[in-house]
């Protein structure tokens, strides 16, 4: 298990005052964050830009030392035992960095494999296996500079797995990828966690991705933790509103009145069209069943029904709004 206890990161930044003068400023990027990642679990780390996600990942992956607090990986201290910890973790970032473009896919993996202490047949087998699972076997001898963005990202995943890490940090792994490639990568991430039992920390701006993949989510704001739970619980605790839009046959005023009376706790709005009425309902619960019952009772024919459940995205937006207010 990875366990971060009260970790913080303080940067000293020079701010230009004039052409010749600059002033040192202390920036607290992460502040007293507690976080755990278990084997076989996908944990999301969310926050707006500048929330401290990347700094947190860099501390967990040993690239940066925390200014305060401790990080342990299976009981090993990430600062004192950095070499052993490095062998157990890896990081995959979105974009096209972290690879040597002049080398082929296989050469990249061979280089990184050796840096992780692999060699000989074991390394060649691992390269073959990884190129196969990321679907780059046919492009293994092609220089990376000729790869498409999706191919580079898949090779990044192979690079991130070269040392068979127990814990993997994914920093915006689907950034800028086409929908089919992103979907394929999400499938791969799920397999890594659920079948290969790897502990994964994921940051992403695509909240549907987080909702689909993550078992638990940490939401941070200006470096501090503001919420930690399952995506479902976070959504349920932050966003209460369900929105239902129903298009029915034209409703008379008495029927509209009875509808309003029958849907207790809901807010209703009606829009009259030439041959239909559109009803908009907002409720702190899912009112679909109740609405259908009422429509049946009033002999109203439903032409279209659309339910919008609260999503994690709504929760994040609500939290951001709350924080900026």
């Amino acid at each position, binding site marked *: 298990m990875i366990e971060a206890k009260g970790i913080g990161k303080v940067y000293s930044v020079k701010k230009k005052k004039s052409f010749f003068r600059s002033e040192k400023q202390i920036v607290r990027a992460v502040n007293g964050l507690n976080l755990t990642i278990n084997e076989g679990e996908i944990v999301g780390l969310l926050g707006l830009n500048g929330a401290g996600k990347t700094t947190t990942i860099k501390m967990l992956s040993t690239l940066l030392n925390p200014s305060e607090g401790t990080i342990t990986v299976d009981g090993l201290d990430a600062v004192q035992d950095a070499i052993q910890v490095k062998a157990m973790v890896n990081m995959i970032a979105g974009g096209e960095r972290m690879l040597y473009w002049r080398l082929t896919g296989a050469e990249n993996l061979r280089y990184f494999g050796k840096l992780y*202490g692999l060699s000989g047949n074991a390394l060649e087998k691992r390269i073959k296996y990884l190129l196969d699972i990321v679907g780059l076997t046919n492009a293994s001898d092609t220089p990376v500079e000729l790869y498409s963005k999706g191919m580079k990202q898949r090779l990044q995943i192979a690079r991130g797995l070269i040392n068979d890490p127990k814990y993997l940090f994914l920093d915006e792994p689907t950034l800028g990828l086409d929908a089919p490639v992103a979907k394929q990568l999400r499938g791969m991430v799920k397999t890594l966690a659920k079948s290969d039992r790897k502990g994964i920390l994921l940051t992403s701006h695509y909240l549907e991705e987080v909702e689909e993949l993550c078992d638990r989510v940490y939401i941070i704001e200006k470096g501090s933790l503001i919420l930690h739970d399952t995506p479902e619980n976070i959504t349920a605790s932050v966003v209460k509103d369900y929105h239902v839009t129903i298009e029915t046959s034209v409703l008379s005023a008495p029927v509209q009145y009875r509808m309003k009376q029958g849907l207790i706790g809901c807010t209703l709005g009606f829009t009259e069209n030439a041959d239909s009425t559109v009803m908009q309902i907002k409720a702190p619960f899912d009112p679909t069943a109740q609405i259908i019952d009422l429509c049946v009772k009033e002999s109203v024919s439903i032409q279209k029904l659309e339910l919008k459940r609260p999503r994690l995205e709504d929760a994040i937006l609500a939290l951001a709004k709350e924080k900026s207010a």
Partner: protein
Amino acid sequence: MWLPFSATFQRNYLVMKRAFPWSFFLGHILSGFYIIIFAYLSYFFVFKKDLSSSFSTYAGTNDYLSYVILGGLLYSFSVSLLMIASRALITELREGTLESLLLTPSSRKGYFLGYVAQGLMRVCVEFAVITSAGYFFGLHLHHINWPGVLSVLVILVAATFSQALVLGSFMLYFRDTYITQNTLFVMMGLVCSITFPASFLPDGLRWIGNIMPLTYGVDALRMVWIEGKPLVETIQLLWKMIILGLVYFPIGSFLIKRMEKYVLEKHFG
């Protein structure tokens, strides 16, 4: 340390094969060549072979052309080597591969040695080309003590490598290669007895030459190359190079480690 060494050597060899750094290669050969041409033209057409007696006293030889050509040869050798080792991490930073390298538990010494060992392949070709050019302009090749030359070069490589670690950490700090390296190279050209003995310089400048391994390397090489003297006579110069290497190495290793964290905090955080 062996695996990072061989991995980095192989990686750089493949990159060099696919994209040979012609600009560096030609640039270093040309800078060595300009020193030779300048010395040749000055010697024959400006001071018409008339050397002052103080030159012979300070330089320990009357063979001005061999003196300058060997200076140019070793200056180019040293500059190439410094550039190869000191630019390693800043190149990773610029190409976006620094993080993936620092994530690995590999030995940084193995990495740097692999970088330098592969770079030496190119430096040796440059050395051979400048030596051949120098031969046509008056570089003597007859009294050479070859084992002595080899020993001087090996010690110079080690000391220069240590100096490059310090230079590399400055480059990372300033995130600059051009001004940082060229300031050092211009200074080396002036104070390391490349085209004239450093003894001609005022005392205020001469001390800078004393902290450059090249100063002792070039003097030692001239002794074993021009005069064919036995290695034992250069022992003091070799010791000075070794001591400088031993001083620069821990300082460079410490600073590089600090700078690795610094750049990640400063430029990615």
